[in-house]
């Protein structure tokens, strides 16, 4: 296991490096640049060159990359072009804010979806199953921001029960009760999206397993139904679900840009769009790295979980030796 982890981590570093290389190239290849954005009537071409020079933008791309990489390795994410603010100061709070929102929504949807899906598999096409199907259709079909706007209209404007937007009421920062009030609507929107797919996955995954011969054998042996479902079927059914969860993990920081916008949540999704339009290269690179790290972690966590739920998977061993 340890050996496997070390190997995976080393691979990850390589992958991360390649990602930064490609991202750096792509971001710089996008037409327009920070000095273009500063393009103001007052700046003559000469003055723009002076500015580009001050910002190091007149250097060849590979030199810029090496410089950036060097700073990165020292933990320096760089500064914004426009106002020379440390990138970390802008980025980290938004990562935290997004994580709060997404983690609550994600965990909530897992807590509801997986048991519900399991239950529905044991009584397929029952009322509960039909309701779940309906909820899934709605969740899949309704654009998140649209649902968000509907909720806002109803709960914030008409009924005036909930705050319209933001993470805290100004001056109430740190008050958990206040945070929960602000979380209610965006979490509802996001959970519905997650729920829609997780409930379906867990149900169909369970149904597939419940059809297997060994389940029939277990039942034939007289194993109680509870035990059949939870001990024999569930462990196997969880494998595809874990794959999906692992793939979804990066979303926890990548955020739901539209939901963040509608609820004015100060998160990373919003930041990314804003910074992309402003061609703030260093912020974009930092966001890319954070997201890439999450993807890598997501896959790693999924792999480890496989080993836990499925005894057939033995990490880091060549198939034959383990047998």
């Amino acid at each position: 296991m340890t050996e496997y982890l070390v190997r995976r981590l080393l691979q990850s570093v390589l992958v991360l490096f390649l990602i930064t290389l490609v991202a750096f190239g792509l971001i710089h290849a996008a037409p327009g640049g920070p000095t273009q954005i500063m393009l103001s009537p007052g700046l003559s071409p000469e003055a723009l060159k002076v500015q580009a020079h001050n910002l190091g933008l007149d250097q060849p791309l590979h030199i810029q990359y090496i410089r950036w990489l060097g700073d990165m390795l020292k933990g320096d994410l760089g500064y914004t072009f426009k106002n020379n603010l440390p990138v970390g100061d802008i980025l980290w709070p938004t990562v935290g804010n997004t994580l709060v929102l997404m983690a609550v929504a994600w965990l909530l949807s897992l807590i509801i979806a997986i048991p519900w899906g399991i239950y529905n598999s044991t009584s397929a096409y029952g009322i509960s199953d039909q309701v779940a199907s309906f909820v899934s259709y709605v969740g899949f079909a309704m654009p998140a921001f649209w649902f968000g706007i509907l909720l806002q209209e109803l709960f914030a404007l008409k009924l005036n029960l909930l705050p319209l937007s933001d993470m805290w009421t100004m001056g109430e920062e740190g008050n958990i009760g206040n945070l929960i009030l602000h979380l209610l609507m965006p979490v509802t929107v996001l959970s519905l999206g997650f729920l829609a797919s997780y409930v379906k996955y867990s149900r169909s995954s369970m149904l597939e397993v419940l059809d297997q011969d060994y389940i029939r054998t277990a039942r034939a042996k007289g194993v109680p139904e509870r035990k059949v479902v939870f001990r024999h079927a569930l462990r196997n059914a969880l494998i595809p679900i874990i794959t999906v969860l692992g793939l979804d993990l990066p979303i926890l920081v990548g955020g739901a840009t539209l939901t963040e916008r509608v609820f004015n949540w100060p998160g990373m999704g919003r930041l990314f769009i804003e910074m992309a339009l402003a061609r703030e290269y260093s912020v974009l690179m930092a966001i890319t790295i954070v997201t890439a790290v999450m993807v890598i972690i997501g896959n790693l966590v999924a792999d480890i979980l496989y080993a836990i739920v499925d005894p057939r998977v033995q990490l880091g061993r060549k198939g034959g030796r383990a047998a």
Partner: protein
Amino acid sequence: MAKKRKRYWLSLFMVLSLFGALLAGCGGSKTESGEGNNKPQNTNQQTDNNKQGEVENTGDTGTPKDGGTFTFSSPSDIVSINPIFINDTPSADTELLIFAKVYDLDRAGNLVVEPWSLAESLPEISEDGKTYTVKLKEAATWNDGKPVSADDLIFTINTISNPEVGAPGISQYDKVDKIEKVDEKTVKIHMKEVYAPFGYALNFSLVPAHVLKDVPPTELKKSKYGVDPAQTVTNGPWKWTEWKQKQYLTFEADPSYWGEVKPHIGKVIYKIYADQNTEVQALLKGDVDTVTSIPLTQLDAVKKQKGITISNKPGASYEFIGFNFDKNNFKDKFIPFESQKARQAIAHALNRQGMVDNVLKGTAILMNAPFLPGSWADPGDKAVNYAYDIEAAKKLLAEDGWVAGKDGILEKDGHRFSFELQYNTGNSRREQVTAIAQQSLKEVGIELIPKAIDFSAWAEQNLTPGKFEAILLGWSLTNPDPDQESIFSSNYFPEAGQNMGWYKNEKLDQLWVDGYSTVDQNKRKEVYAEAAQELSTDLPYVFLYQYGTPQGLGPRVKYAEEDAPEPTRAHGYFFHIIKWWVE
């Protein structure tokens, strides 16, 4: 340097476009956008809209109250509130709260001395028009107790003029020869030549020389001045207390403010909303007290709400279709609209009133020349008005030698009358206007090919180098002076100036110079009337309309009628905010 003058603020316009781009991200919410497709109407009356647009309810005439919080919403965050570097709307909005200007502008755009201006009296201009004497108020101080002095003024202008600093306002002072300190509160600014628009360059904020003078010019941009509230020494009615990036800024009435007129509002919050729909809902809910750009699709919904005042007089911007006159940008080096008649035909064929009614919901006024209606340089009837008239357009095209080809598109000498019109992605107004133009032109046999490009890429690859066939763009006339040499004169071809369409007209080239070479306003008025006539006849642009963004004000905001918002001034939604109060 002197040649590289580009005075017109692409920046504000740019902010607006970015804004449009952001909007596109979630445009689905209220999709009225489809209705922009025109129902052609033959409407020639162009002044009808003048009346609407007044602020609908005038403010309360009750007694002003001190204290209270005023919340202002914005679609984006500030960059820096260091006056030397300000180049975007949010930073300039907040600058007005914490920095006094040397001179202010009145409703009509005249340079004036207000009780809150730093100057004591209007600048004395010498007889030859080349020396401006500026005297600052004795009482004016920075909020660290130091006086606002002649040194600050000299330092500010010299710093902005230094190319190493990278100040966006650099061109405003390029006609300045030298600045002489007369005494602690007085300076004499010597100009290289007579340059009438210079007066408006004195409508500016100062930075404290005693704080910044030891920072090397190239390091100024990295200074914490303007980004850290604690290190930003100011001289305006409010002081900057907090900046929570991407969320909000707060400002509090400054107890050490020197002015005789003190602000009523105790605290101003500048709150950032990523989404325009949410911003408007926040106004409806009462979370914010004013929204400066209500999307046109939501205007009706806001109007229905009781207690919300809407100010939708057009602002200081105009939109146009600009032609390119450089052959190299065209297939086979053939410019279909090379002749004046062809351009006039396009002007006649465009249903501009239809654009104003359907796309801008009546919040715009037709324009025929680049001088704001109602300003002192408004040429009135001197500018040619091209009524929507398909027959007139067809006639002009026939006179120009165009005949219908097989596919209905006009042809001449084996060339089709077809051109590409570029605009920026995500700007739904321009999208719709382009659609209307496309349809209108098709009726007279002209093919318009719309092309949307991301703003930043557009600026770099097309606008700055002048490489396109035609563009749909807007200019913000943040400076009320009518001089627009750097847009239309052949001395300002790319990349030195903003004559991006390579337009050359010797008569106009001279008129611009005549216009700024005298400080006599009556003489200037005549010059610009002639320029308007020439421009509207020769049509380097088809001028479309003067437009703005409707501002909504919540029920708590109060002001006397004379202090109401003034959309035609830059940041006019804050006009006289020092005298506003909240209930």
